[in-house]
Structure formats: C-alpha cells, structure tokens
C-alpha cells in the first residue's frame, strides 16, 4: 500500500489531527526511512477540551498544545513546521495567501506526496479550508515538480458520495505507535475519546477501542484538472 516516496508532507490544521488521521501511515513511511514533515496550521487555540480534570485554560492552551504537538511528532519521528494561523479562523483567511504560504514550504521541501483533508468532506471548517488551500498550493506547482496528493474525508457520508477511497491503508500493525502519538495530546484526548474511554481503563482495552475506530487511514488521490 505504501509506495517508496522521496519526502512526504502532511498538512492539517490542528495539533492531534496528525495523530488521529495519519499516524499509522507516517509510521510506515518512517519505517522505510522516508522523511515526513508536518505543516500544522494552528495551535488549536480555541479547543474546548481543557483536560479532565482541567489542565489548561484559554490562555495556556496554545502553549500546552504546542508541547503536545512536539511530543507527538517526536514519537512519530517527523519534522514539524507551525504555520501560525489562529484556530477556527482559517476559512476567513484569503485562500490564495494561505496557498502561497504553503507553497513556499513545498517548493523548499519538494515532496513526492502531500497528505491533507478533503475539502467539504472534513467536518471541521479549519479542515476544509486548509485542505482547499493545500490543494490550491499543489495545483500551482509545475506539473513536473507536483507531488501526488492524498485527500482524507471524514464525514459520515463520504463513502456514499465520493465512492471507495483510492488508498485504504490498514495500520493495525502500527497501532502502538499511533496510540502513543494520540496520547501525547493529553489536554485533548480525554474529551475526544470520552465516548468510549473510561477512567482507569486498561491500556490494552483502550488500544482495542482506538484500533476499532482508527485502524483504517483512507485517502482519495486528488485529480487535478489539465
């Protein structure tokens, strides 16, 4: 499933998107020695999860999430660049400006593969907006330098509307690493996993629950016009 790439760039807006969305695929790339760089759009400044019991407040949250992001990227052994946008506002930025900003990184890194969200099928407005800007950035590149782009859809209906994803990557074998990366996001994880995470839950039970929901990383290969 995972091909030999030169360099992979992952583009998502929030610290933790990388761990839930692509940690297994990233691990597979890194296991083959392929460099991976995460362009993280914001620091999740407006997140409402503050830990339970709360360990953050609105003003300390970005600092805490930045540390969590660095810890997760360390676990996944990937480089990270923070783009400096403000959580929840990406859809109001000028898309072309954001695309040009992203393109600066892509021109420098010259990746063979870019992973981002599928616009309009990614639930969170920041996901949709940064996905759209990333696609625009890749589309602006010369065809001979243009990387392949994998777009990730997460709405409930994406399968029905978009059809079967081109890439269905089973990352069960990478689940330990993926869970370790997810758990780096301490301020977020309890809120996000609260539907099935019980206090004092054994690590392997939690791992099974996470595996049930996050062991398939699915992507569509973006088709550019022309």
């Amino acid at each position: 499933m995972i091909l030999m790439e030169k360099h992979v760039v992952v583009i998502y807006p929030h610290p933790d998107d990388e761990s839930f969305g692509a940690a297994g695929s990233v691990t597979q790339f890194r296991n083959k020695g392929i460099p991976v760089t995460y362009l993280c759009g914001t620091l999740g400044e407006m997140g409402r999860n503050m830990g339970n019991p709360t360990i953050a407040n609105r003003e300390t949250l970005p600092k805490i999430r930045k540390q969590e992001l660095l810890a997760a990227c360390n676990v996944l052994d990937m480089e990270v660049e923070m783009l400096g946008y403000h959580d929840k506002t990406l859809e109001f930025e000028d898309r072309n400006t954001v695309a040009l900003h992203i393109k600066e990184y892509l021109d420098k890194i010259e990746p063979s593969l870019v992973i981002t969200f599928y616009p309009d099928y990614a639930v969170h407005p920041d996901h949709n907006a940064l996905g759209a800007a990333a696609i625009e950035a890749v589309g602006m590149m010369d065809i001979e330098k243009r990387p392949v782009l994998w777009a990730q859809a997460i709405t409930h209906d994406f399968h029905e509307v978009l059809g079967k994803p081109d890439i269905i990557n089973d990352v069960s074998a990478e689940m330990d690493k993926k869970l370790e990366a997810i758990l780096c996001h301490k301020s977020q994880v309890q809120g996000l996993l609260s539907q099935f995470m019980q206090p004092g839950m054994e690590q392997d039970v939690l791992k099974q629950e996470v595996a049930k929901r996050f062991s398939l990383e699915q992507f569509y290969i973006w088709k550019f016009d022309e």
Partner: protein
Amino acid sequence: MKPVNITEVQTVLEQYMNKTVYVHLETTNGAYASHVNQNAYNVGAFIRNAEVKFTNAKIVGSNGTYRVGLKLEMGWIYAEGITDWTITDDDQLLLAGHDREGRLMVALQVSNHPFRY
C-alpha cells in the same frame, strides 16, 4: 483554574472599572457537535481583544454557576454559566464555565493589556 469565589472575583472585576481594558468573550459547543449528534447544532461565537470601558461590574449566582454583567457606556457585556476563575501570570482575569467533562462552554476574560493574538 479554581471554582469561583464570588467575593474575590467581584473585587478583581472592580479593579478594571472605568479604564480601557481588553475583553475576550466566547461561547462554544464545539465544531463536532452535529457530527457526534445529528440533532445537535453547531453554535459558537468569540470576540478577542475588544477594547472597552465599563462603569459597573457584577458577578451574580449560586451553587457554583455564575453570571457576569459589565455595563458599558453604550451597552453591555454578559456571560452565563461561569464556574471557574484564575488570574494569569500576566495579570489577566480569566472566567470560564466548564461542563462535567472539563470542556469549556463559555469564557469571559478581562485584561489591562491585549491578549496574545
């Protein structure tokens, strides 16, 4: 943050009266509300670094949840559901309301200097 002590918060609020201050006001039920529950609505609003001056300030409530009203020359600032408070190292007053899972539902913050942006 710690549970609101109404007397202490009232005292701090009054220190910000009748001078130019910066306010962060926010309410949210999260960007995934209608993703997790089809019948839910996504609603939220925030304003960061509104420059205002208030002439009256009061915190009211009981049983752990409070309302705060700040009277402006030409209007009001209001927040409901406040449960916790703190003063940051930067000397900024943070008031927030959290649900049972520790998620922020409402925030009202006041500072003499702008909040990080």
